[in-house]
């Protein structure tokens, strides 16, 4: 299920529209994930405050979306582009890759909330494929 040229164009165009609010998207998606999928909190036991919109959540949401933004620019070769991030997640963070799907879902939910008219089914499928490809690239170095 690789990204077609049309998918890449759709992702790039939608990203241009939403990138200004990427920190907010990241913060909301992460907040939602911690509430809706409480098992994900296990990765953040070192944070003082896991409540929605807290400082650590906002800061980390911004980091995550920074990674997504980077991935958009490297959409033609995500495996190469995300090599360092993959090594980080594989050897240092060791986040179970099932959680990439969970966070991706919440990113899509936030996009639907913030951009109800623009998040059409066509944009939805392109973004879902992109986040899935991103997740695969992130899991590349795990084993």
């Amino acid at each position, binding site marked *: 299920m690789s990204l077609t040229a049309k998918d890449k164009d759709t992702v790039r165009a939608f990203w241009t529209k939403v990138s200004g609010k990427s920190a907010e998207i990241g913060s909301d998606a992460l*907040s*939602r994930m*911690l*509430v*809706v999928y409480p098992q994900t909190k296990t990765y953040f036991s070192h944070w003082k405050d896991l409540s*929605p919109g807290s400082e650590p959540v906002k800061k980390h949401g911004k980091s995550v979306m920074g990674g997504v933004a980077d991935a958009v620019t490297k959409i033609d070769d995500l495996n190469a582009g995300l090599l360092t991030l993959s090594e980080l997640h594989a050897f240092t963070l060791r986040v179970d890759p099932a959680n990439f799907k969970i966070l991706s*879902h919440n990113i*899509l*939910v936030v996009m*639907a*909330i913030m951009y*109800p008219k623009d*998040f*059409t*089914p*066509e944009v*939805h*499928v392109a973004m*879902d494929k992109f986040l899935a490809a991103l997740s695969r690239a992130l899991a590349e170095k795990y084993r």
Partner: protein
Amino acid sequence: MVEWTDFERATIQDIFSKMDYEVVGPAALSRCLIVYPWTQRYFGNFGNLYNAAAIMGNPMVAKHGTTILHGLERGVKNMDNIKETYAELSVLHSDKLHVDPDNFKLLSDCLTIVVAAQLGKAFTGEVQAAFQKFMAVVVSSLGRQYH
């Protein structure tokens, strides 16, 4: 048996009471057929599903989307008895329709996104958790009678 908090019960009742089934149903089903195109395998007799525009304009898709929402309403009205409520439909989906139960989750995810777009900021994390819990119970019940 599933334990529901007062908040969860109230949230589910509220969401469905305010929902226009004839808008949300078709939107969710057509989104599912577009985002997860392999789900089209179950709708061979629905005519033109060739592209997103065709799917979104297809009257059989719209009708079936509405039917599905009415089916969900049964669970909303019987939250303490969801397993029994869907036993017959589970048998139907298994023995007659031969639907892979993994598809129920795909449709559920699309419905979540449609509801999120409708409710906007009102679809808070807590509301999302309640909605997804309800959908997970329904999905599980629909897969329960497969053998």
